[in-house]
């Protein structure tokens, strides 16, 4: 163990300075969101008489309550479906014998390469024909399909490295394959399930283009779309806009600060495949 030397102190001050630069936009965001409309001082100067009035007003004007409810519902529901169907698909892909699992795996891997823009318009039309436009169900359906390849990829890679002895032991004891999956394999997959849940939930919560397309012209909104329309309406009233922005990122930042170890690990580990 090296000691804390003068060079460490120098490095520390450089890094803290970098931290301040990184935090500057967030400081301005919070600083302006608690400022009254009559306070015309510099946006960089700390607000001397903070108020929460902007928050109350933004909450009402942006319709954030229903947008938050929609975002939570879409995120939770999609992540659950993604986890179940992807883990299920990974089971035969990792364990079945013969050639077809390899081809099926490559078929899923193809989905990692196709950019969403390619199928954007035909899918929009097929959702329209199903009467799903303007409903949050279109989003759940979309995210489930879109995120399946990536999640299957993670699950299969993980499961291939898990020895099959547990399932074999269960089979010897007379356990059928379906039950073996749910009571033996699924619990073994818990670490990678955490990663899959985190990466998918953050992606779904933050996605903007999809709800912009599928919910436009309807009364349904998710948080990013509500923010987009809210800013469009109150474009000059930055204090109000910033209060709305803060409200919209608080849920995800709160989740991040509560589970930061787990989330950082998920992002770092999920990509090792």
């Amino acid at each position, binding site marked *: 163990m090296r000691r804390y030397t003068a060079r460490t102190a120098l490095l520390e001050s450089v890094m803290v300075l970098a931290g301040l630069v990184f935090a500057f936009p967030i400081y301005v965001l919070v600083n302006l969101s608690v400022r009254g409309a009559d306070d015309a001082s510099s*946006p960089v100067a700390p607000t001397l008489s903070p108020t929460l009035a902007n928050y109350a007003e933004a909450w009402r004007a942006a319709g954030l309550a229903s947008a938050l409810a929609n975002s939570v519902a879409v995120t939770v529901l999609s992540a659950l479906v993604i986890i179940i169907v992807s883990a299920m698909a990974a089971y035969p892909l990792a364990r079945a014998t013969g050639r077809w699992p390899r081809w099926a795996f490559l078929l*899923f891997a193809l989905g990692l390469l196709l950019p969403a823009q390619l*199928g954007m318009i035909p*899918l929009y039309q097929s959702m329209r024909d199903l009467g799903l436009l303007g409903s949050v169900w279109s989003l759940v359906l979309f995210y489930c399909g879109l995120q399946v390849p990536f999640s299957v990829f993670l699950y299969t890679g993980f*499961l291939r490295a*898990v020895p099959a002895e547990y399932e074999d032991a269960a089979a*010897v004891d007379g356990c059928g394959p379906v039950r073996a999956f749910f009571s033996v394999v699924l619990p073994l997959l818990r670490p990678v399930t955490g990663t899959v849940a985190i990466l998918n939930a953050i992606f779904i919560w933050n996605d903007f283009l999809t709800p912009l397309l599928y919910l436009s012209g309807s009364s349904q909104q998710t948080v990013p779309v509500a923010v987009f329309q809210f800013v469009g309406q109150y474009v000059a009233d930055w204090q109000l806009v910033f209060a709305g922005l803060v409200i919209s990122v608080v849920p995800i930042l709160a989740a991040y600060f509560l589970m930061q170890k787990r989330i950082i690990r998920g992002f770092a580990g999920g990509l090792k495949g």
Partner: protein
Amino acid sequence: MPHAREAAATTRPPARHGPERPLPRKKRTTRSGLRRSVPWWFLLPALTLYLYVVLAPSLQGAGYAFTDWTGLGTPASFIGLENFRKSLGDPDARDALWQTLLVTVVITVVQNVIGLLLALGVNSRIRSRNVLRVLFFAPAVMTPVVTAYLWRYLYAPEGAFNTALETLGLGSLTQNWLGDPDLALWSVAAIVIWQFSGYSMVIFLAGLQGVPRELHEAAGVDGAGAFQRFWHITRPLLAPATTINLMLSMIGGFKLFDQVYVTTGGGPGHATETLSTLIYKNAFQFDEYAYSTALAVFLAVVVAVVSAGQYRGLQRQKGMP
């Protein structure tokens, strides 16, 4: 060190014998001679969703690229490569492609250099390393639309950046960040770099944890300086993390949409137009459905070529001892 063990357990499957040993080939039968039966129909739910949402529409989209369809109900007729020919002669498409490439290269290089420096910084003995790590990564979980609006304000002529510059006595450096066609693209790139440098940092950090401290100490004893130790020990061991980071930031750059759409809408003029915003505009504002799918095919090819190249690089690295 309970945390370290927990961390290792989550990124690695349980009950694996020895970290570096290659796994035995899959056994077709169990030790007791039982044939393992795996329910193949477990694939069906995932496959159905994937077919409906990704595969079928993508194939259909690629098909439209060869027609003159406008999306307004008129029947489409086959026009061969006409849309692709049109895109080559379309100054908007050419600008968008050039700008997409340019912004991708800049984001990839700058974001990863900053990410690596941050990772090396917080991987040291400094006391604030845990707080800083959480802080640097925080923007990466924030909604891009929200951060883009925040930055639009920071960039405004009377906004926080110009005010801060004036406060520091650097009034001559104030800029019309998003309104100047020569600057706007770089201003948008800075948003992405600010938001995702922490993401690169986290992946580099995971790689740095695999660099044995003893190697560094031994090299230090042998008289290697800090830079030499980085270049000859850390850098080669970071190769997998570097590949993943390059792939992620390049693909992110090629698909850049939210930040452009929210801050400049592609302007001023077409100065910040990217392939993604151009595809969106052609499809949903100009009703040029077939043409926009041709541009999307183009984007798909670019992304696929880059990913395939990176993926091969990654496989090669894994194959190395």
